[in-house]
């Protein structure tokens, strides 16, 4: 992650704009309480928390740059929505979808569906617009077929 994913320009820009990075270490007594609170079991694991320490995203294992960008974007967007900043959350997800499509080809790759799932959800939370939600989730169904993200679009 340090050698490839975090130095990636898109990842670094996302972190620089939206996130404060905190690295916790097993065995550090100053980190013990937070590690216990997060339920940390395995490395690497990352979380996106809001400024109150509430968890919005968790992922375990190595993530290549575009995957990391997607995970962090989803976490940031959900934290923004929770803070009443849905328009900014939509912008974060729009950029993430564009970036992911540019790397993997339009509507391909494992995160293409989840980003659109959350984009639909975040837009709906702001607007209450069922038609817009269905449009995003139609894309999820198209991408994911009968996969886990398509199946939850009901």
């Amino acid at each position, binding site marked *: *992650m340090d050698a490839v994913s*975090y*130095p990636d*320009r898109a990842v*670094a*820009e996302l*972190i*620089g*704009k*939206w*996130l*404060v*990075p*905190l*690295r*916790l*270490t*097993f*065995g*550090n007594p*100053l*980190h013990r309480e*937070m*590690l216990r609170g*997060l339920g*940390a079991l*395995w*490395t*690497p*694991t*990352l*979380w*996106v*928390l*809001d*400024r*109150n*320490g509430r968890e*919005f995203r968790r992922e375990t294992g190595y993530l290549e740059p575009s995957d990391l960008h997607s995970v*962090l974007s989803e*976490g*940031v967007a959900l*934290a*923004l929505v929770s*803070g009443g900043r849905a328009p900014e959350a939509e912008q974060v997800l729009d950029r993430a979808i564009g970036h992911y499509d540019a790397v993997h080809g339009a509507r391909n790759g494992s995160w293409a569906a989840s980003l659109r799932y959350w984009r639909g959800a975040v837009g709906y939370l702001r607007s209450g617009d069922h038609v817009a939600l269905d449009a995003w989730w139609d894309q999820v169904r198209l991408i994911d077929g009968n996969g886990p993200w398509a199946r939850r679009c009901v």
Partner: protein
Amino acid sequence: MPITWHDDPVAALAEATASRRAVLVEVWKPG
């Protein structure tokens, strides 16, 4: 652009509050 990681949870949350950002936490096992 290298990332500067905090190692103080209290300071990281305080900076997140001041800058209206979220917090990225990564758990690391040295060695």
